[in-house]
């Protein structure tokens, strides 16, 4: 595996973070980011994005409990 360009690195980030890269590609990517600040920053931003996505769970709305409970009871009555 020869060296990777930055443009290629950004397309490999997810496979890299998922541990799905072939060993030679992974080695080439790690070699690249060891000397490329912008790509390291980019990968850090992807990680930050992932972390913030996790925090949006707090913002989720709940479905109407009463309606679901009523539907459950009707179902049990064989409705």
């Amino acid at each position: 595996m020869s060296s990777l360009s930055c443009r290629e690195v950004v397309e490999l980030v997810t496979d890299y973070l998922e541990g799905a890269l072939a060993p030679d590609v992974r080695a080439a990517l790690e070699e690249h980011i060891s000397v490329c600040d912008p790509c390291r920053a980019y990968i850090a931003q992807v990680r930050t994005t992932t972390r913030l996505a996790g925090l949006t769970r707090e913002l989720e709305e709940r479905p109407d409990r009463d309606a679901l409970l009523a539907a459950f009871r009707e179902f049990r009555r064989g409705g």
Partner: protein
Amino acid sequence: MDEDERDLIERLRAGDEGAFMMLVEMYGPLMLRLAQNYVRSRAVAEDVVQEAWLGVLTGIDRFEGRSSLKTWILRILVNRARTRGERESRTIPVSALEGDDEAAVDPDRFFSLDHPRYPGGWSAPPVAWPEDALLASETLEQVKAAIAKLPPRQQEVIVLRDVEGWDPEEVSAALGVTDGNQRVLLHRARSKVRNDLERYLTGVAA
């Protein structure tokens, strides 16, 4: 299947209201979020969620535990939502990968591949994000909005993986995608959300 899950399934089969409401508590918000992606209104999304629960109650006697309960419930929800979405004739992209050809980052931000010094290197590299803005609640709202506007399949994958923290295997089982397709969808989703976040944060910083 673990002890708790077996117990929950038994209680649900026996018509235990508490068990049902516990599941509603656990998976209801996620189901509503995913349903809203396929239909126009909140009311119809609520309807889809209710339909899915009725599907769960109808099918629980036949549930064999080959997948986990949450995977099975999610699969029912996604199927109902897709069916309802088609009936509402919302355009659902045909390709399972949805824009597989899109670049993660705008190609204009890189030097050309035949650039003498930096072939394919950053011409407009990412700028550091302001730490304090990251913690602001508006930023989270932006992330949520960025996720909400993703095409349905990308959204399902990023919600289950990054928001809910499911394992890749669980997500593949719930959505019926291969591991490879899941990674492609996740890649598109994360790249777009990062882009939106960057646009927002660099605007904030300016």
